[in-house]
Structures are given as C-alpha cells and as structure tokens.
C-alpha cells in the first residue's frame, strides 16, 4: 500500500509551479484578480472618467441613467446565460424581446388592455422557446443556426404586428408606470433586474437543475451517461430564455411607451458580450450571473464615459463588438489554462 501511495503522487500543478510563480499566484488570488478583475477595471474606468469629464460623469444622475438604461440589457443577458450554460446559443432573444414589446403595445392600441397584453407577450416568449427547443433537440439543428433563423422569423413578426411603423397610441399610464416609476431614486427596472439576478443565481448555483445545465455544457455525452435527461433540460433552458426575453420586452415597452419593429436588435450583441465577458469573472471558465452583471456595467460605464467625453455615437457598437471578441478570447484562454493545469 505504501508503494501505491508513491506512484499516485501529487498532481502536476503542485509540482510544476515554481516558487516565484506560486507567490505571484497567491498574491493575485488574495486580491481576487483571477475572479474579480472586472471590478478593478470598472473602478479604474470610473476613476478615469471622473477625472476626465467630472461635471458630466461624476454625478448621481449619471449613475442612475446607466443603471436604468442597462437593466433591460442585463435581464436579456441573464436569460441568455441559461442556454449558454448547457452549450446552446439562443440568438433569437433579441427577436423575442422585440415581438414582446410589439405584442404588449399592440394589445393596448387595440383596446384589449395592458394586462392581457402582458400575459400574451409572456406566452409568446414561451412558445418561441418551445419551438427553438424542438428545432435544436428534436430536429438536431445546431442551436446557432436554428435560433439565427428564428430571430429572422421574429423580426418578420414584429413588422407584421406593427405594420412596419411605430405604434404609440392607447398606451395606459398604469402600464408605463411599471417601467418608469422610481423607488429610492432608482427606476423600477433596476429592481426587476436584481430580482431576476437572484432567481437565476439561485437556479444556476443552488439547484440540481443548475448542476445539470453546467454538466451538459461541459460534456453532453458524459451528462447523458450520468443519467441526466439532456433533451429535457435543454428544452427547459430555451423556455426560460424565451420567457426572460419576453419579460424584458414587457418592461422595455413600459419604459418606451411605444413599439417599433427594430426595437429588439440592438440588445443582442451587448447581451452576448456581457455573458462571455462575464464568463471570465467570479467563476472563471463558466458563464454566471454575477460575472455577467459586472460585465454589463463595466461595458456600459465605458461606453457612457466615452460618449460624455465627446466620442461619436458609433462608439457604442464599436465598443460592444470589440468587447465580445475580447471576451470570448479571454474565456477560451481561461478554459484552456484550466484544462492544462
């Protein structure tokens, strides 16, 4: 038995890492660079912009604007985490958001009342998720392709609902209150975002379903042979991302008080950027809720600061696109180093 113990030696990590490397690593662990680098970058950004454009950036009002405007993106991104955790893309989230906005406004413009509109919009989100899951799970279409097709179909849906133009008539003030009222000086959507974050964080980190999702994302074949019902869990993931996107759409409609066919599109890229950048934070190597939130506000602060400093309007798209590429590259590196270790 003693011989056995010698042959099963300590793992490579312990042996390979030299003394200086280990010391450096320990320091970075204490400071949380490996898990919370985003928070440091965020602090640096806030500092830079506060010094650069103090009168515009460094105000409570600006912080409120960033929080309010990013609440919707954050909710869409958090819904996206669920399918991405189990290895499936959902490119149709922005389309679902758009359809949801148009549905809930159309119901009011046609005097069916906002409450019914909200219910139908949420149901539409679930139906989209169900169809996505049938395409991916039953028809074995790659999720990237399947949901890309779905997003175009949903765009057609928004054009059909709105007749190609803007709808803004008959919107109830009780409804817009859902998106525009404030508590403690913060717009309500910030609170929805926090509530959703808590629910999804719980789901992913503190329930068996979360384990199954990450298991499927890590190795679907191993997951199946560990008795996990891969098809069923994947279906649930799409249903949830559809529902969350639809809910985000309802809140966005209340914020805007109107609907137009192109309302969803701009949310897709920032959501993806945040999810993948978030995968480098808090629990490196896996998409997660707190990491995604850090990423959202990091990106938004950067964009807003640059805008206030006089950068042109296209900085937004530029920043988000670059962030997505960098985020995925970083996530790939984190994953590779984890596998190598």
């Amino acid at each position, binding site marked *: 038995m003693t011989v*056995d113990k010698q042959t*099963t030696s300590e793992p490579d990590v312990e042996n390979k890492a030299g003394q200086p490397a280990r010391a450096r690593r320990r320091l970075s662990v204490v400071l949380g660079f490996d898990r919370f680098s985003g928070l440091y970058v965020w602090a640096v950004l806030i500092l830079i912009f506060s010094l650069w454009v103090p009168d515009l950036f460094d105000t409570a009002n600006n912080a409120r604007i960033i929080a309010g405007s990013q609440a919707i993106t954050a909710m869409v991104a958090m819904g996206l985490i669920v399918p991405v955790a189990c290895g499936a893309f959902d490119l149709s989230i922005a389309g679902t958001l758009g359809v949801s906005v148009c549905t809930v406004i159309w119901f009011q413009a046609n005097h069916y009342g906002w409450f019914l509109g909200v219910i139908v919009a949420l149901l539409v989100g679930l139906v989209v998720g169900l169809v996505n899951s049938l395409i991916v799970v039953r028809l074995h279409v790659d999720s990237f392709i399947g949901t890309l097709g779905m997003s175009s179909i949903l765009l057609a849906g928004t054009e059909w609902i709105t007749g190609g133009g803007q709808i803004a008539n008959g919107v109830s003030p009780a409804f817009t209150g859902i998106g525009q009222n404030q508590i403690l000086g913060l717009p309500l959507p910030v609170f929805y975002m926090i509530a959703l974050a808590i629910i999804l964080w719980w789901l992913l980190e503190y329930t*068996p379903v979360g384990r199954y999702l*990450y298991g499927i994302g890590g190795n679907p074949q191993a997951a199946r042979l560990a*008795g996990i*019902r891969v098809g069923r869990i994947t279906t649930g993931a799409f249903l949830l991302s559809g529902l969350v996107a639809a809910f985000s759409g309802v809140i966005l409609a209340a914020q805007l008080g109107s609907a137009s066919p192109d309302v969803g599109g701009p949310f897709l890229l920032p959501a993806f950027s945040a999810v993948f950048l978030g995968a480098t934070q808090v629990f490196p190597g896996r998409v997660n809720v707190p990491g995604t939130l850090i990423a959202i506000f990091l990106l938004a602060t950067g964009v807003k600061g640059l805008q206030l400093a006089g950068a042109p309007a296209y900085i937004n798209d530029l920043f988000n696109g670059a962030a997505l590429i960098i985020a995925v590259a970083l996530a790939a590196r984190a994953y590779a180093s*984890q*596998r190598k270790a």
Partner: protein
Amino acid sequence: MTAALTVSGMSKSFAGPRVLDGVSLSIEPGEIRALVGENGSGKSTLIKILAGFHLPDEGSAEVNGQPLHLGDGAASEALGLRFVHQDLGLVNNLDTVDNLALGVGYSSFRGGIRWRQERKQARKALAELGYHFDVRRTVDRLAMSERTAVAVARAMGPRQTAPRVLILDEPTANLPAAEAERLFALAKRVADSGVAVVFVSHHFDEVFGLAQSVTVLRDGKHVITRRVAGLTEDGLIELVIGRQLEQVEHDAKAAERQAVVLEAEGLGCAVLDNVDFSVHAGEIVGVAGITGSGRDEVARALFGGLDRTGEVKINGGAVPPLRPDKAMGMGMGLVPAERHANAAFMASTLRENITVVRPGLHWRGGILRKSPERADVAKWLERLDVRPRKPEFAMADLSGGNQQKVVLARWLRLEPKVLVLDEPTQGVDVGAKSDIHKLVDEAAAQGTAVLVVSTDHEELVRLCHRVLVFRRGRIADEISGGRMDHDVITAATIGRDQAGAA
C-alpha cells in the same frame, strides 16, 4: 519468382522497449498471408512502417524486387502497396463514387466531372470484387461488408502503378459472420489476380479458412512463418501466447449464490446478438472478447447509452432502453470506457463531478447546501484515496487514475444495486489500479452485482467470480473455477467459433 513483398530486419522502438525487433518476412504474389499476434505484438507498427507513418530504426523492405523508400507514404503507393485500415477511412455522407475519388481525384475530370462515366467505373470496380449495389447511395447506408468493399475498391483502384500487395488491417473486426464470408471471397478474388494479400486478424477461424500461410509476431519478434496446412488451432494459440495451454490450478473466487439482481434476456445491439446472462448479488462477472465481439457494446447497451433490443431487468423490474436516467433510478450505475469522452467533466470541480448524479441529496429548504455536500465529497475522496483530497479542485488537475477514482466515487456514493464497469482501469497507473480493484471487491462484498467489461484479462482473473467470453456477438464460453486464467481467457476470445462454419 520475385517476392511481392520482402521485409528485412525491421526494428522500431518508441522511447523505450522495442515494439518491433528485427522482423523479416517475405510474401509471394497471389499469396494470402495472415498476420497474427496479441495486442502489442508489433503488427500494427509493422503495417504503419510499410504505409510510411513511422520511420523504422533499422531494416529495409522491397516491393517486387525494388527497394522501398521508408517513411514516405507516396513511395509506398508508387511501388504498389495498398492499405485498408481498420476504420476504412471512408467519408460516411458521401457516396461510393465520391469515396473512390478521395485522394486520387476523378479520373474523368476534363474541365468538369463526367458523372455517368464515374458511376460506370465505380460499378465496374465493385463488380470485379463481386459486389453490386447502388453506387449513388451514401456510405452510411451501406452494409459493413459493402463499405469494406468500397475501401478495398479504392485501394485497388487505378493509380500510376499496378497494385502488388493489399494489406488489410483487421478487416473483419466490425463485421457480422455472414458479411465476413463475403469479404473472404473478395480477398480471394484479389489474390487470384496476382496480388499478395496480407491480413491482420484475431479470428483464428479466418486464418484457417482464408490464409495459405501465417506469420506470428510476439513481443515485437518474428516467431514463425509457416503454411496453414497441418497447423492446429491449439498449436496456433500456443504460438501466439508463447507457452503451452495447461490446466492451471488457479481457482476463481467462489461466491455464495445470492439472489439474481441483473438479468439480460435476448440482448441485441449492433453486433450483440440475442445474448442472455445474469448477475447475482455480491457477484463480480467479467466480460471478455476481442474488438467487434460485442464486448464493447454490452455496458452501454445495458445502461441505455446505446439503443438495444431485448430485456434488461433489475430485481425483476424492466429497464427501458435508451433511458440512462431510468436505469440509474432503478439502481444501476455505469463507469463508462473512455473517461474523457464519456464520464469526466474536466472543467468542473471534483465535488460537482461526484454529485452530478443525484445532486439533490443535499437539497434542503430549496437550496443545495454546499458545505454538507463538500463534507460528503471529502469523505468519498478519502475513502478512495484520491489525490489531492480537494473537493474544489478541477477534474482536469488530476492524474488519470485519480480521475477514474472520482468517476467510481460518483456511483459508489449512490450504493447501486448493479454496477457496470467498462474498462475500469484504462489508462490508470498501477497503484490506482489496485485501489480500484479493492473498491470493486468491497462493493460486491456489500451485495452489489458487478459486471466488469475489460480487455485486460489479468484484471478479469483478479476480480471476477466468472467471465463471459464474447465472440461474434454471442457468449461463446463461460470461464470460472479452475479454468480461471489469463491465457485461457485470451485463447477463448480468439478461438474457433463452435457454431461458425470455418
């Protein structure tokens, strides 16, 4: 007559022991030669040297009297050496015509492919081998022997030089018996055209039914080359394993018979053909067999990883096919072969890897309680002596043996009624291997019915009360008691099929 192929003093080592040690042989045109030997005897290294994959340390080869430039695949082909590797190298979603053109191009191409002409040529090439099927069907819709025919037709197809030697590497490994017969006819046609045929096989009935001569390799050395006529099967087995088969006084572990827990009735899956067996509580039953015997499918077919026919019962209750979740719920656990692909979550922690089956055990008040979970996992890591004993380490940080222990812990934690182990010590160091064997013994001692599928026959002898030997999809032998011996199992896996016509 000039020999079709001559190999002289061929040696090769990969960082250490010689896997090929001064092998010389010679084959005449039109001769069918079987190349036999245990796993690791150097057969595939020799073939890979001839194909130009490996450069030998020493030695030379001649094809039809001309020296072969070693280490160059194009040179091998230019001299007329043709290969059909075990996996055939076909593209499944292309049809026969396209597969025949892979690597050599379309012969009718003059500014455009003349499909009609290509199809005619493909049909002709297959007809010469005795096959007639729609050449426009994609390969995945062909029978296994038809696929082999496509691969042979491609190997024999038009090149700058005529084929001199056709080398088939385990061509029948995945072939049902009836289809193997067709392949023999094909090999004979090729040989009749004056081409030397070399085939690697573990099926001794093929050696006797097809080959005129046989070359035996053992531990990288050439043992003998002789005519098949006058050789007995026992004689060949002794040549392969290097010692006489004797009645060994090595009693298998005797189990006191308890109730039957696992029953398979009429189990069918790929090559598995209507197999019946059962495993009692506290019993460890082994499954042995060469590749293609059905051995590799048994475990996944039982658990639901592969589709199957027939009944699988646990304590009398039927387990539905293709439902690993149901199998698990009824008390079955599977440690699958090929840990990386089938069992390990490399980026996840040891804790998550172990509790991924039934994480809900620590679910209290709507929350997975992580600290009891961690304590539970730490207990298992200690019991299995996993190094390091750190529940939050990533699976990828562990050595192969420790990873395998983690996968085993995953199932032991559930105290399964039936534990199915597929190659449980594959790629595992010696120390971890003996630890794993002890754990399997302990599980059985506590009443778990254990089925161990393994190509490591020493392991089966070490662990099992009895061993089922699979050949061509059926149970050909059952070894227990005084016959329990490594060589007896090996001989049984490659022996003549009693029911087969040879």
